[in-house]
Every structure is written in structure tokens, then in C-alpha cells.
């Protein structure tokens, strides 16, 4: 979703070809390690944008080189882009894979939950190390946008580390409670227990 709209935005800034779009997107997010997008995925997305009439294509001959397809935004593309830019962005903080892993770990006995916490903490510290050390190499006078993106990543990891400490301190309490379950719903004919009527 957001990759599609970001590509639309990059095309809106200036008409360009697929390979240029791929490079521009990777540069915008600060490298492939931050947001892995494959080149074929870019072309699939461009085809979808074309089919929906959000961009148009034209062939441009390069001096002495082969023809290249250049993409240009259409008016309906511009409208969609403006709608996206005018709306707030939902947070996805409750879609947490580690949480799922932890709950399944507690419900089964394949791995030790403390071991899982240790591995997760190690991984987060490694990521924090990579980001913070990379940050030292950036120039705040030229690369402020990327620095702020890295700062956000590092703040989120710090929050995750604090959360892991909290989970670890309360792990025994969590495991003594039942796993979150769907609410029981009656199916078929309502069941009336003997004596229930009178009590009400």
C-alpha cells in the first residue's frame, strides 16, 4: 500500500523510469536493509498503477541507447496521492510477531520462554548497535531526514527493550493466566439451564 503511494509520489515529483524509481525508493528509506523491495515488485506495482489509470507511460529514446519507458502521473493519480497525504497514518504497534511467538511458546513447550526473551534482547541490542553506529557516520547538515528515520528506529528499539524487561519480570504471572480466548458464543438453540429462570 504505502510503497505504491510512495512510488506515485516519486513519479509526481518528476517523470521517471522503473530502475530510477527503484533506486530512489531505496535511497528514500535509507537502504535495502531497512525496507526490502525487490525490483520485480516495483514493476508489478507500476503495472497495477498503469492499469488503474493512476500513471501513464511513454517511450523515450535515449541518445545512442535503447528505448526507455518513462512513467508520468495522471490527474486521478494526483487525486489519490493527495488523499493519502491528507490522511493520518494508523500505527501498527499491536501487530507484533514477537508477541505471537511468546504466546505460542507459553501455550506449547517447544522452547524455553526465558531463552526466547534472551534471544530477542540480543537481536534488538545488535540492531540498536548497527543503527547507532551508522548514525555516527551520517552528516547532520546533509542527511538529516535519514538521521531522523534512524533516530525513530533506535527509539522504538529502546522501547521494545524496556518492554522485554517488563515481560521478563512478569513472565511467571503471564504463564499462570489462561491465554486470551475467543468469547464463548452459543450456537443453535439457546440453552436454558435448570434454575436459571427463577434466579433472574
Amino acid at each position: 500500500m504505502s510503497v505504491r503511494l510512495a512510488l506515485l509520489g516519486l513519479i509526481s515529483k518528476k517523470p521517471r523510469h522503473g530502475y530510477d524509481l527503484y533506486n530512489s525508493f531505496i535511497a528514500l528509506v535509507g537502504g535495502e536493509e531497512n525496507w526490502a523491495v525487490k525490483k520485480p515488485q516495483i514493476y508489478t506495482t507500476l503495472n497495477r498503477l498503469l492499469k488503474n489509470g493512476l500513471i501513464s507511460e511513454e517511450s523515450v529514446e535515449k541518445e545512442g541507447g535503447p528505448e526507455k519507458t518513462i512513467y508520468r502521473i495522471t490527474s486521478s493519480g494526483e487525486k489519490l496521492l493527495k488523499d493519502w497525504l491528507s490522511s493520518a497514518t494508523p500505527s501498527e504497534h499491536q501487530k507484533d510477531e514477537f508477541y505471537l511467538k511468546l504466546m505460542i511458546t507459553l501455550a506449547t513447550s517447544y522452547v524455553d520462554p526465558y531463552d526466547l526473551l534472551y534471544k530477542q534482547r540480543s537481536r534488538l541490542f545488535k540492531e540498536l548497535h548497527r543503527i547507532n553506529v551508522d548514525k555516527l557516520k551520517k552528516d547532520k547538515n546533509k542527511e538529516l531526514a535519514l538521521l531522523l528515520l534512524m533516530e525513530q528506529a533506535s527509539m522504538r528499539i529502546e522501547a521494545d527493550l524496556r518492554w522485554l524487561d517488563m515481560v521478563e519480570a512478569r513472565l511467571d504471572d503471564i504463564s499462570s493466566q489462561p491465554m486470551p480466548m475467543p468469547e464463548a458464543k452459543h450456537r443453535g438453540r439457546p440453552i436454558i439451564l435448570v434454575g436459571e429462570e427463577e434466579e433472574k
Partner: protein
Amino acid sequence: MIKVKDLKKIYGSGESKVTALNGVSLSIEEGEFVAIMGPSGCGKSTFLHLLGGLQKPTRGEIGLRGRSLSKLNDDEITLVRRKEIGFIFQFFNLIPILNAVENVAMPLILDGMKTKEANIKAKEWLEKVGLGNRFKHLPNQLSGGQQQRVAIARALVHNPAFILADEPTGNLDTRSAEEIAGLLRDVCGKWGKTIVMVTHDPRMSSYANRIVHLKDGAIISENRLI
């Protein structure tokens, strides 16, 4: 190499006995940058003080490049501290009436070097930590980050092998802390020192290459970051 074996430190006795360190064993290679992390009261500062010979352990061994600190007398320990260890503190511990050059030159002068020669070396290190234009400033004319840079130059000026840092950014704002973190990485990466840094801050510890987690006076886990 630093080799610590079953280190114990107990303060007081009888009813008021407090166990600050309860059997810590750890090896640190030359050139490593290790963060000792844990909540306040976990024993991390005690650990650093014992490593630096500022306090004596109740039990256990500290080996510094093959010599056991417990087998040295007080004069010999002072000598080890003066030649081989540099300290960095949370509150910088600069002498307020001395300017930057004089503060940095102090360890050399105490070691018997002539003032003129010591000042030349001090200036070299102030240049290296990015304070080439602050030679004559007194500590109170410098920002917190700059004062800590002076303190780092002072810790390095006598060319020690080991740097012991106690919450080096605990008194600094985020931006200055980041600059000091970068400088400490240079101290290790560029200038080849072994750093043992105590901190409670996950961000700060992430600049190290290894984190040792301490709780209730004992190592509970370790993370290698590279």
C-alpha cells in the same frame, strides 16, 4: 587482557552487611569495548572501582595483563593506576581553577614530567578530541559535552591501555551523549584502547561491542553486538 575471577565485595559486617558483588568472573580482551549494564545497586560501579584498584575486593582475583592486583602493595597499585588506567567519570571531575590544558597535563606532571613537555602532550590530545580551540578555557566556560571531552583527553594523555568509564554520559543531554559515544568508539577503534564502561542506559551500551548484564551483584547474561 583483564581476567576477573570470582570477585566478591561485601560492605560492612554483621547486621548491616551488604553484598555488592557476589562472585563475578569475566575476561576482557585487549581492544574490546565492553559495557557493564544494570539497574542502580546492581554492583556495576563497585565492579569498576575494583578493576581500577580504587577499592579492594573482599575475595577473588583481578588479573591485569597477567599480574594479580591482590599481590601488589598500595604503592604498586597506585603505579599501575597511574601508568595503565585512565578514568572517565559521570561528573567529569575536572579541577575548576585549572584550564583545559592544565587539567589534561595534570596526570603527566604528577608522574614527574616537566610542565612544558606535559602541556605539549595535553594540547595534542585536546586536538584529537576536537577541542583544539579551547585550550585556555576553564571547566565552567565549557559545555558538559566539552568538559567530558577534556576529561577523556586527560584519561588518554598518559597513554594507558585501559579506560574505565563510569556513566560517562549520565550528566549529558542526548546530543552531547551521542558525540561522547562516538568519541569513545574512536578511543577503542582508532586509538586501540580497551574500554570498560558502566551504564544503566541501553542506548549508551549499544555503542559497545559487548554488553554484560549485572543484577544483584552477579552476571545474569551477555550480548555480543558484533
